[in-house]
């Protein structure tokens, strides 16, 4: 176990911990909001698929010497659009199409990075490195997170409607395709941001865990969204603290916290049921 007072010098806090904290909270917020929609729309796979595409893109960008984030965001948005169309009208079926598309992108990325011999640098994005984010990365991700949250709030009611009953929304004249696209774009941005922090392997759990935990606890959509945000941010803070204390990887610690929160929610649900039956 680490002696926290030795690590937490004022300089460390100001230069490394605080920016990581801000960026992490912002990204946790976004991912929990979108996670609710993805889980309820039964397309959690899109988050996973996008993280593969994102990782591939980051590899290519690093191999070419481009700025990784700034390249990855537009590419993943484009991928989100394509994945959505594939799952809408593909003969293969949504899941299969997503898996094929995203692993191909991943393979291209790995190929590019192995040609350029950059494996060490790129593994950051596999496992995440929130404490190693540059100041530019932090500012970029905070601004994008704020945009995601604002857009989500502005379209909250419509996102509910297309998630709840897509056919009714389409039949009564809402532009369902636009709102699906909007959800996909917001997801894409969140995935790329989360990848810097949590790593490509873990980002989709950051989106899905808070949502399923909240669904165990609440019965109304608004309640679920708010609970998911609270769970997500709390678990992030606890996970970060745990990783400082035990010197473990941040991303994995956060996911362990999310898992713990989920299990607690399951137990609370069971207890509630038991007390009602008595």
């Amino acid at each position, binding site marked *: 176990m680490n002696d926290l007072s030795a690590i937490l010098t004022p300089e460390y806090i100001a230069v490394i911990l605080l920016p990581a904290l801000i960026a992490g909270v912002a990204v946790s917020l976004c991912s929990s909001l979108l996670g609710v929609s993805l889980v309820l729309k039964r397309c959690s796979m899109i988050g996973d698929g996008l993280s593969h595409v994102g990782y591939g893109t980051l590899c290519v960008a690093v191999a070419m010497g481009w700025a990784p984030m700034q390249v990855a965001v537009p590419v993943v948005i484009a991928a989100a659009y394509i994945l959505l169309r594939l799952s809408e009208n593909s003969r293969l079926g949504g899941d299969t199409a997503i898996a094929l598309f995203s692993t191909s992108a991943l393979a291209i990325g790995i190929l590019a990075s192995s040609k350029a011999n950059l494996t060490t640098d790129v593994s950051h994005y596999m496992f995440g490195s929130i404490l190693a984010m540059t100041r530019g990365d932090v500012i970029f991700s905070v601004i994008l997170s704020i945009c995601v949250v604002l857009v989500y709030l502005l379209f*909250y*009611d419509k996102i509910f409607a297309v998630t709840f*009953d*897509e056919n009714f929304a389409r*039949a*009564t*004249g809402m532009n369902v395709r636009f709102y699906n696209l909007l959800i996909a774009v917001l997801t894409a941005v969140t995935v790329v941001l989360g990848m810097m922090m949590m790593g490509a392997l873990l980002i989709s759990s950051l989106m899905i865990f808070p949502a399923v935990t909240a669904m165990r606890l609440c019965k109304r959509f608004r309640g679920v969204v708010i609970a998911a945000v609270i769970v997500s941010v709390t678990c992030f803070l606890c996970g970060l603290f745990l990783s400082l204390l035990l010197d473990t990887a941040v991303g994995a610690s956060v996911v362990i916290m999310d898992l713990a929160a989920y299990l607690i929610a399951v137990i609370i649900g069971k207890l509630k049921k038991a007390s009602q039956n008595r």
Partner: protein
Amino acid sequence: MAYITCDKITLRYEALTVLENLSFTVSQGDYLCIVGENGSGKSTLMKCLLGLKPVDGGKLTYGDGLKRNEIGYLPQQSQIQRSFPASVREVVLSGCLNGKGLHPFYTKAEKERAAEQMRCLNITELADRSYRELSGGQQQRVLLARALCATKKLLLLDEPLTGLDPLVATELYSILQHIHDAHGITVIMVTHDVECAVRHAQSILHVGKKESFFGSCAAYEKTPLGKRFLGDAVEPEHCENCVHEHAEVQHE
């Protein structure tokens, strides 16, 4: 020009032809009931009128300034997931969204509209309950309230009476009559309750494999098709099977 004009439309599911050569019109202020046997294609026709399913032949045109976001709809079976967390109020309010364009958040008027529809259908006490925990008839009423919220000019209902108790069913007929007469809403309703259909509607569309009918209720009652569906043949003395059995029992 009518709201909806169907000119010899054909509807198919891959190889299965559901409807063929069907023509009818729906104008502003109409009250049309669609009747027919199970599997004759009523729900399919509704989906096609709503643009959820393409027409496979013939022509379907909208006119008279009818826009898609002025239509309310009650599906026969909705694809809503069992486990979806949503309160009754959230569901009913979502019916108001189609008139909003890109404006965010519900206005006071829209909340008032939703509250009014909930009062109409007697679900005000359920407003904060979870939709997934309601009984089938209660859920049906919630979806009806949502459909009424979405309705500006045209209301399409696919078997709205399913699961409703007789009191609410009667109530529903008077609500429909009211919004039709007082607010000038055009109503298209699929129903198996042919007697009520003839009593309340202005025109009847009977869809069927062999014969179909489109015209006024009075004309429908005179056709053989209408007579059969209105149950003239179900009088006790016409029930030959039972008569046979009774006769046999008496013989022994």
